[in-house]
């Protein structure tokens, strides 16, 4: 079984995003970048499926400038077999990304596509679902458990109020939630080995996909700041203030 894992290069999880002075976007100049955390979970899950003998091959794909090859190499070091970079310097939306991924799915015919549920930059939470729609595959989003057996994948999903398990016919799309697994760290020998694994470059503009957008970002601003309040001395003091000052408890 071939598994495809699309990954995204984003601002590092530990870095606080700052808005540009001209309010056009977030300032990413000289900011540490990394693989989107939910994508790391997706890579880990695919590699585990391979280690269990369920997956035969793990292909990772990323869309962006040459810089995203860094994250592809990381995925290769974590255990993926080969990588595809789809070269573009456009800042694409989820729909355009899903359309490019659709082309990759048509070409390499994976039985399972595992993606992160959302990227921590645009916070859209759309790409996996959109790819499922475009390829007419069933979807198991926000997965906390994935079991492949008998041509189907059972996906336990994190939903409001608990868990839901669905059974999907393969090929299928899975998007990862936090508790699915704990990604490993790449070992030095594996990082060295990853440098020799195949990495193919495709050009987005040659893939026959309309990448124009009708969703315009008019401005990007800092959120309204909350002002720090007061420190209280004791629980009694706190309860008194909540009752009489804030009036939020009776």
């Amino acid at each position, binding site marked *: 079984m071939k598994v495809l894992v699309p990954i995204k290069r984003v601002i590092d999880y530990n870095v606080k995003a700052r808005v540009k002075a001209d309010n056009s976007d977030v300032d990413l100049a000289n900011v540490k970048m990394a693989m989107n955390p939910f994508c790391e979970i997706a890579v880990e899950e695919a590699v585990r499926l391979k280690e269990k003998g369920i997956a035969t091959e793990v292909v990772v794909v990323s869309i962006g400038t040459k810089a995203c090859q860094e994250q592809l190499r990381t995925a290769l070091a974590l255990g993926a077999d080969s990588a595809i970079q789809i070269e573009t310097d456009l800042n694409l939306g989820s729909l355009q990304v899903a359309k490019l991924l659709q082309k990759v799915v048509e070409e390499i015919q994976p039985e399972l596509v595992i993606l992160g549920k959302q990227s921590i930059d*645009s916070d859209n939470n759309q790409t996996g679902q959109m790819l499922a*729609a475009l390829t007419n595959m069933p979807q198991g989003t926000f997965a906390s458990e994935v079991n492949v057996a008998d041509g189907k994948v059972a996906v336990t999903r994190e939903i409001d109020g608990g868990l*839901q398990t669905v059974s999907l016919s393969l090929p299928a799309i899975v998007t990862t939630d936090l508790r699915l697994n704990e990604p490993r760290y790449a070992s030095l020998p594996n990082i060295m080995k990853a440098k020799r694994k195949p990495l193919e470059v495709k050009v987005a503009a040659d893939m026959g996909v309309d990448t124009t*957008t009708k969703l*315009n970002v008019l401005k*990007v601003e800092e959120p309204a700041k909350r002002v720090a*309040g*007061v420190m209280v001395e004791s629980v009694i003091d706190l309860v008194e203030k909540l009752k009489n000052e804030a009036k939020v408890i009776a």
Partner: protein
Amino acid sequence: MSILLIAEHDNSELKADTLKAADAASQIGGDIHILVAGSDCMSVAQSAQKVAGVTKVLVVDNACYEHALAENMSALVVSLAADYSHIMAPATTTGKNYMPRVAALLDVEQVSDIIAVESSDTFKRPIYAGNAIATVQSEYAKKVITVRTAAFDKADLSGNAELVNIEAAASTDLSTFVSHELTKSERPELTAANVVISGGRGMQNGDNFKLLDGIADKLGAAIGASRAAVDAGFVPNDMQVGQTGKIVAPDLYIAVGISGAIQHLAGMKDSKVIVAINKDPEAPIFQVADYGLEADLFEVLPQLEAAL
């Protein structure tokens, strides 16, 4: 303009998320119709008729919608889309599941998680875990939108909409429901509660979350957790408040043993009043708290329970 708002429900009750999304819809303006798709869901449809500003409730009662599977929900919504300029749903895990599928089938980019309506085509939404707010304009003929319900007020129940039964759309067996395991709790749901008390890594283990129970009982509060507490395995993920969990905006939010990582703040900073209890005076949570108490939580939680 006409808006199709898809109801969030459990086949017996209409969820408050729908009322809040209805508030966002009425800010856009135009005719608002609510779609209730479910199984044995007539009581939900009757509640939806009362939502202020709604002129029509479309109800489809069919077993294939019982669990709101994305494949069937999206096929249904797309079959109705021709009549509408806006298709909206609350950004719950259900809405987040099927709405992007609807958008892709309509060849439209979705606007996720709106927190404000600027005009019928322009909306504000948080990005980068709420560290920035983007104003986006959709030039698509159809706008597909999910609503961050914590940012809107509940619509009144003063309406009297017409009820229309509609046919189910084609369904698929590519995806089937197996089971669910819902957290049983006498407490209010996190996103609907007026008071939320959350524990973080400072709670040290899952057992210690019991220290929050008595306080939650007295305040009628829901109990939440930070991502750190979930990652450490103290509590299940459906308790997580934050960018990657639930977004809450209660009247009172009490953060216990939570340092205040950006990703947690993104999930609760719109609460009316924030209380932070932490023994580290440098914890960033104090910078957003209205009332801070620098103390050992194991000492003050029993005191707080007794004082309420």
